[in-house]
């Protein structure tokens, strides 16, 4: 389901479409089987810099092309399409499977679970290919996990850029973090409008 970027970019500004990288919670991004811990954060950048391969990139360990990337967002997003730029010499990933809204997935989980969607990738060194999603399944995504099980025959897998096209909803699908239970109600928390001006008074009941 790849679609070719068949117009020149001078007419409109493509980069605004690929701006979901701003909504990624970079501090919590993690990857499994990466050679250099933390290098996964370097693949999320602006559209204009997608071909800039001089900096860091994501590389898997020697002799093992599998990669698993966990990406949480700061708010719920709708993802329309995904773009991946790999590297030459067979190091580009050949397949991509994604899981949404689940954290703590590791390789055994990824192999046994049914992916939300799967794609066969092609070598996309110029970054002109994007892979469309089944939009209905990607309506409120708070985190996405990308699993790249294989590559085109290289010893390692290399990824220079991962881009998401879509829109952010400004909503947060949040887990209730702290709950405080009271054993007895605290009157000062429950002032009625009349009492707000006057302090709580005991009624002598006469």
């Amino acid at each position: 389901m790849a679609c070719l970027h068949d117009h020149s970019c001078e007419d409109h500004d493509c980069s605004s479409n690929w701006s979901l990288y701003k909504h990624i919670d970079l501090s919590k991004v993690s990857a499994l089987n990466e050679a250099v811990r933390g290098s996964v954060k370097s693949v999320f950048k602006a559209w204009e810099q997608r071909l800039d391969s001089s900096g860091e990139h994501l590389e898997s360990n020697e002799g093992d092309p599998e990669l698993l990337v966990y990406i949480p967002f700061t708010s719920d997003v709708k993802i329309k399409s995904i773009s991946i730029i790999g590297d030459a010499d067979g190091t580009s990933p050949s397949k991509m499977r994604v899981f949404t809204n689940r954290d703590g997935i590791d390789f055994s989980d990824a192999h046994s679970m049914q992916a939300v969607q799967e794609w066969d990738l092609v070598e996309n060194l110029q970054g002109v290919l994007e892979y469309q999603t089944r939009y209905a399944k990607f309506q409120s995504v708070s985190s996405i996990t990308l699993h790249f099980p294989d590559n085109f025959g290289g010893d390692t897998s290399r990824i220079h850029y991962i881009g998401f096209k879509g829109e952010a909803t400004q909503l947060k699908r949040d887990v209730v973090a702290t709950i405080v239970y009271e054993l007895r109600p605290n009157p000062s928390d429950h002032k009625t409008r009349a009492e707000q001006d006057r302090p709580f008074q005991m009624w002598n009941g006469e």
Partner: protein
Amino acid sequence: MVLEATMICIDNSEWMRNGDYSPCRFQAQADAVNLICGAKTQSNPENTVGILTMAGRGVRVLTTPTTDLGKILACMHDVEMGGEMNMAAGIQVAQLALKHRQNKNQQQRIIVFAGSPVKYDKRVLEVIGKTLKKNSVALDIVNFGEEDGRKPEKLEALLSAVNNNDSSHIVHIPPGPNALSDVLISTPVLNGEGGGSDLPAAAGGNDFDFGVDPNLDPELALALRVSMEEERARQEAAAKRAAEESARQEKVEEPSSNSQDATMVDSADDRASEASGNNTDPVQAITLSMQTPGHNDPSVHDVDMSEATHEEEELAIALQMSMKDESDMSKVLEDQSFVSSVLASLPGVDPNDPSVKDLLASLQGQSESEQKKKEDEPPNDEK
């Protein structure tokens, strides 16, 4: 302060009955486990630790990763020795236990105590190591106990397969006089990456002056610092008194009080402070201000209170004199009383020992009467 979930794999095989670590290998291992659990939970309150045994009837998880130290210590009591250690299965079960940890933000770590021979070959261990590395699980190996020819080599191969950026370590502990846990204190197993220790390390190797982190225990650090300064001040005062003794011996004839002062010099008290409490001498004031009041040696207290008053002025004069002239080290050494007092304060040296006395005599060429006077002094306790 890294947030971590740890699984400790204990070896409870028959080899653990051996007594080459006191009292037996198993007990030494249990102490080490307690130490590690304490250190992990102390460095970050959200750290969790779990325990499993590798031998016996099979790999058995005693506790899943928990913050409750009491639960961990309790389950260590019921462990029985027997069977053979199954390291590969142990590590894999540990990995599974870590995978199902409650807080997914925690880093995963496995600590393996390898006390008996490893029956798996290198290739199997390397594959296991690679799986651990792929799932970003760190591994610490404590190699102790049975010294098999190929065991270190296998364990090193496992470590190099797992190691990612020096987050995994191996420690070899041969049997010796030190307890297993004491040796572990200074290793990266307890210190984590970078060697920063949050424990007040008893075996040294810490960055703080007195072995106590001022952040962890400010009162203890303060107390240690104060007592160190007190001791220094006392020794300065003692040296000053000895200098003034030699000055006074030539000028003022009070042999009895001199010998009494000599005894005083050895004992740990601040008689100088009470004798010259009213002294406005600035140097004395500084040293005395560091000494806490009420810190007295009662035995000497009784003896010298009678002479306290009339010695005050003499002290003042003598101190000023001693301060004025450059301290002549040879003169100080010639002073029999000073040298014997210094010797008495050394542990293991008895000034009444005849060989020590002969040495003194040869050094100073003192008269016999002086030596007899020293013998009459109460033998000073070695401090």
